[in-house]
């Protein structure tokens, strides 16, 4: 049951790129599309390992070919800048994960041919936590991590 669902989701995820490319008219027809394409399993996973599973992976190899840039200390957890660049061949997708957030997965980006394996985004981090850059290539999943300290700010109230 679980496996079938995961397979379906994986298929859905792969198809989503095609659907979106197929034209914005289809995409805009209704909310049904968002809920079909959006990877609910991955986004409701609590732990980093569960997210990997939801994407159909079993193991992510630590890699120094992924550059993850985050501030060491964030003045406010509501906006934490994250830049990820992958030097791995055939990078297909980049995922941003935060270990201590209620749901680990923050964002995922599918990288089509012609687009650099480079993403800059801003995310919320509830409290001091490891941030992960999880990269999917044709030869599997790769990962790197860095800690971001989230501080209390200002006058405290």
């Amino acid at each position: 049951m679980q496996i079938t669902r995961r397979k379906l989701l994986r298929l859905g995820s792969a198809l989503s790129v095609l659907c979106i490319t197929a034209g914005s008219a289809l995409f805009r027809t209704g909310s049904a599309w968002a809920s079909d394409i959006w990877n609910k399993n991955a986004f409701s996973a609590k732990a980093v390992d569960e997210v990997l599973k939801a994407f159909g992976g079993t193991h992510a190899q630590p890699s120094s070919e992924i550059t993850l840039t985050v501030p060491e200390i964030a003045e406010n957890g509501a906006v934490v800048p994250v830049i990820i660049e992958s030097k791995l061949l055939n990078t297909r997708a980049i995922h941003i994960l935060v270990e201590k957030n209620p749901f680990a997965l923050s964002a995922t980006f599918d990288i089509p041919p012609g687009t650099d394996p480079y993403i800059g985004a801003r995310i919320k981090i509830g409290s001091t936590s490891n941030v992960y850059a999880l990269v999917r290539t044709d030869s599997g999943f790769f990962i790197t991590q860095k800690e971001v300290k989230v501080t209390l700010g200002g006058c405290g109230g």
Partner: protein
Amino acid sequence: MVYFSKRCAMAILLAWGAVAPLSAAEAVADPLSQYREMLGGDNPADLWVSRGEALWTEPRGPRKATLVQCDLGLGAGVVKGAYARLPRYFSETGAVEDLESRLVSCMVQFQGFKREEILASRFGDGERHSSDLEALVAYVVTASKGERMAVPQNTSQEKRAYSMGKAIFFYRAGTHDFSCATCHSADNKRIRLQALPNLTTPTGAQAAYTTWPAYRVSQGEFRTMEWRLNDCFRQQRLPDLKYGSPAAIALTEYLARNANGAVLAAPAIKR
């Protein structure tokens, strides 16, 4: 008299001696510089600027009028450079006005909005949603970005507002004995990790005033100088500072005038 000159001389000596090593130490010591650098120039305040521009040119209010007749001090409809020259005295209202009280005056006068209604939602819902007024401020302020602060002090009213602002800055009250000066009258001080500008010096006032208004990261909203002052007084444990009130404008006059000569860098991005 003798005392003051000696004290000044000592202060100058200390300052000269301290500047070089301190700034080097500060660069290393500021643990938040990397965070701020990464946020860089990509400021969500831009979203309010386009909203505000549309609000400025759209016919709105009971009179279906635009704000292009509004005189922000440089003549009707002139937006560019206006913020760098505010607050100032307006003879037609007989008062010193800051940008925000001026915008309210114009919205009432030309568009027929009710003052109480504008003020009721002056900071949006006070939490997550900025108001149209704040969006207008974003637009007008951005039109002065890069200009030098040149707040006039030609009238007795402007001079009175300045000294009143200074007096309020040092006024200690409330359950916690705080005044503005408690946190903002010494160099290299922090609350938690946030650097506190010394607003009694030109350098400090310039750095602070030219980076407000700002996109406030903690709220995800654009916030104005009136908001900044209002929230400072809240944290001082004082009652609610009225929008466009004599005290709000006097303090703004004091800070803006102290910032003269500096290049306006607002809207900035803040914690």
